[in-house]
């Protein structure tokens, strides 16, 4: 570590030469001005979505600029140690301020530029837009003028890296009473639900991009401030309470929606996320690359459709109750999982990738051909099995709207709640399995199969369990998805397509979110579902962007957004001795690669 010497040198100047007091003042004034500029009219016509034409009331993207401006002010005040806000910036580092100003700058300039581009010319901007643009630039200048160690001595690129670097050590939070901790978790859950709901309800692509700017930079700022670390420590102490709050928030979601369309998005995200979580057992825990995973979803969906009582099903007289068809679907997927896994799991892992890829392709070809014409009659070929009846539990028909305590739950909201239940089962299976003897065997096999086998683990058997379990969970999710979509057709069950779920998107959700974590694949699934859904203009290029993103992700952050600690160490392997140096969670014993 050659830079330990320079670290002790006192910081004197910033990247932009300005007195420290002026820099602070600039950030504060600029932040307030940015928030205030949201109250001005930015354009003269309501042709730009969101109606930004009012003086005195923000609309659409202006709300985001307002929020980002307020966040900047809050972080700037906390950085200076304003009483009552100290908790926002435990280490008083520059990074949260820089990142929140970047968020405000990004949102505002994106809005101004897209008004100009959409309406064709600068003439469409009202003075308010210029005010906003200048106001959001000021805090950024101020933030880069904050004194940062090394500025002016090292190359600019490196200094910029230091400006947004996380603090080396986050001091442990003061001990708080349990009820306060629970209150904090509740508050964070509510804010999280509100943020998520806002994102799903965004009505046009520009708003969603602005939303992403604000959310990504806000979360990044909190991460560099150490707030995320502190919150994870809090969660670690109240695990079951957090889990309960998470599910309460998930259940509360449809009650916040007035339009069943958004509940439909919600149920699709849940199906996608549940399947991604199942894949995470296979890929994230056991380290087996399954490239045809969506076929197991398809097996479940087709099985459920065949026994649903649909008049177009080959067994149209058969109508199983839902619990039976869910079990049949899961069992059919399990059977296919064993059939595919048994011959290939004895071999090198690479073969599995290619066999599952082949299986995924074969599944699609087979269901296309099993139409009684070019093959035996089973799946009705490309037409699929339409008019699958809605589910009904104890007289509660999922297809109809119900009024519960003043809230109207539409068809998709009903299925959403059912999917929350299915996801709860999958999360339970995942966490219990991961913490058990077999979960530790999976991780051992993933890390080093030879060593694990030498320790007495039956590699083939535990891999087969992982593979079959993953398949069964996908099948279970498939049975619900068959009822949600009314019909099953071969088309979605392919390797790559422009809309999720398909095998490539599922794998990407797991990798992007973070392999081996529960929250990661769910977050990845939500992002990957919402991005193509909201950014309609990307539709044609979304797969291209997606492919490039996968390559870059593997190159620069292979552990995903939410990193599993063990994975992170594995991907950034630097030798075991320097592991404690790079860790920030000093209050916990460091887990080494071979540990636990």
């Amino acid at each position, binding site marked *: 570590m050659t830079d330990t010497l320079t670290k002790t040198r006192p910081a004197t100047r910033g990247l932009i030469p300005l007195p420290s007091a002026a820099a602070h003042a600039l950030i504060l004034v600029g932040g307030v001005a940015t928030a205030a500029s949201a109250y001005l009219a930015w354009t003269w016509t309501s042709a730009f979505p969101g109606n930004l034409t009012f003086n005195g009331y923000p609309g659409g993207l202006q709300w985001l600029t307002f929020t980002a401006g307020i966040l900047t002010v809050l972080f700037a005040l906390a950085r200076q140690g304003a009483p009552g806000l100290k908790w926002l910036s435990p280490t008083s580092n520059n990074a949260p301020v820089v990142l929140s100003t970047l968020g405000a700058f990004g949102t505002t300039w994106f809005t101004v530029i897209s008004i100009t581009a959409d309406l064709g010319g600068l003439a469409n901007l009202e003075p308010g837009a210029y005010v906003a643009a200048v106001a959001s630039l000021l805090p950024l200048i101020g933030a880069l003028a904050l004194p940062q160690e090394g500025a002016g001595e090292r190359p600019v690129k490196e200094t910029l890296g230091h400006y947004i670097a996380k603090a080396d050590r986050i001091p442990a939070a003061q001990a708080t009473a349990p009820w306060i901790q629970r209150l904090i978790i509740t508050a964070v859950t509510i804010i999280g639900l509100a943020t998520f709901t806002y994102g799903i309800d965004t009505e046009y692509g520009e708003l969603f991009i602005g939303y992403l700017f604000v959310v990504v930079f806000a979360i990044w700022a909190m991460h560099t401030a150490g707030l995320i670390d502190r919150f994870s420590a809090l969660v670690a102490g109240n695990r079951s309470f957090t889990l309960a709050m998470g599910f309460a928030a998930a259940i509360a979601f449809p009650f916040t929606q007035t339009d069943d369309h958004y509940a439909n998005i919600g149920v699709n995200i849940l199906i996608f996320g549940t399947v991604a979580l199942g894949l995470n057992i296979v890929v994230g825990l056991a380290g087996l690359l399954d490239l045809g995973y969506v076929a197991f979803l398809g097996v479940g969906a087709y099985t459920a459709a065949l026994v649903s009582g649909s008049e177009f099903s080959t067994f149209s007289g058969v109508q199983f109750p839902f619990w039976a068809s869910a079990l049949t679907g899961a069992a059919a997927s399990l059977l296919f999982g064993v059939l595919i896994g048994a011959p290939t799991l004895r071999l090198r892992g690479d073969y599995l990738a290619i066999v599952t890829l082949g299986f995924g392709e074969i599944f699609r070809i087979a269901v296309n051909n099993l139409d009684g014409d070019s093959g035996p009659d089973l799946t009705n070929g490309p037409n699929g099995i339409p008019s699958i009846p809605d589910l009904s539990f104890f007289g509660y028909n999922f297809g109809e709207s119900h009024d519960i305590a003043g809230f109207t739950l539409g068809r998709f909201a009903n299925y959403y709640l059912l999917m929350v239940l299915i996801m709860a089962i999958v999360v339970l299976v995942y966490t219990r399995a991961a913490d058990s003897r077999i979960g530790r065997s999976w991780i051992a096999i993933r890390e080093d199969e030879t060593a694990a086998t030498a320790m007495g683990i039956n590699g083939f058997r535990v891999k087969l369990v992982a593979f079959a379990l993953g398949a069964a969970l996908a099948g279970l999710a498939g049975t619900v998805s068959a009822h949600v979509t009314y019909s099953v057709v071969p088309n979605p069950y392919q390797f790559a397509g422009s809309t999720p779920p398909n095998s490539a998107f599922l794998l990407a959700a797991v990798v992007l979110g973070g392999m081996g974590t529960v929250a990661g694949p769910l977050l990845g699934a939500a992002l990957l579902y919402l991005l193509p859904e909201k950014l309609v203009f990307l539709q044609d290029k979304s797969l291209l962007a997606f492919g490039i993103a996968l390559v870059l992700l*593997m190159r620069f952050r292979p552990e995903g957004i939410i990193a599993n600690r063990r994975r992170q160490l594995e991907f950034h392997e630097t030798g075991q001795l320097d592991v404690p140096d790079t860790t920030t969670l000093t209050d916990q014993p460091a887990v080494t690669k071979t540990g636990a």
Partner: protein
Amino acid sequence: MNTLPQQLANGLLLGSMYGLIAIGYTMVYGIVQLINFAHGEIFMTGGFGALTVYLALPSGTSMWALVPLMLIGGGMVAVLIAVGAERFAYRPLRGAPRLAPLITAIGLSLALQEVVRNFYPDADRARAFPGLDNTHDIGSVTIKDADIFLILAAVVCMASLAFFVRRSRTGRAMQATAQDPDTAQLMGIDTNRIIVIAFAIGGFFAAVAAVAYGLKYGNIDYRMGFLMGLKAFTAAVLGGIGNIYGAMLGGLVLGVAETLASAYIDGIPGMQQLGGASWANVWAFCLLILVLLFRPQGLLGERVADRA
């Protein structure tokens, strides 16, 4: 009329195409233990490179001049992309866990497909390719000029590769690197250069296969790499991965098996409806599973030791 000789010829022709592509998989796998999942797409871009040359030349050009120029054009594109992928996507990940380069390969494969679909003119549907459609009757077998080209290309490629690997200095360095990269490096072999050469040869052979594909079927499209790549990888495993002769043999076996299955399987009682081209891929895949069950090292055995 006995159709068996014709079916066998069709199978061998299809198989030599698989074999040419499979060599790219097997060489790269033999040296760096990486499934270059994007190899199917390199095959596809080779085809589009050749098509570009065809479109750039005046329309009356003789096929004797056209085909070599298309081979050069397609080969250049495919080699450039293969070497670029190695340099910028795979090499930075060489020490990483095995999952990382595989996922990179999938991303690369999607990106290449989409680049062609989005940016090559009219590539969202099949593009016409010049065909060599003159037919010759040899006994009861009918073959086209394109088939003769394919056979010649496969034989020439295979022979020169065998000569290169066995006789040339670089070829022997390649064998050494496949056996043990660390020791090979200690012996003064520039392993990075060897890896680049393996990617380049694989890319060129894929481009040859793509030109043959275009000449035979008369059109190419941006999706053709996926299934051809999957089949070619199956062929490589079938023959024993890492073994270049195995790749060719595996390709031939797969091609023949697939053709015979789609032609004759509906004659077997109880399987009447499972014949025809639509089920050919299913049988190819079943063959892969059977080989993995009973002879996982492949027909000729693999050349690489299993490193965990």
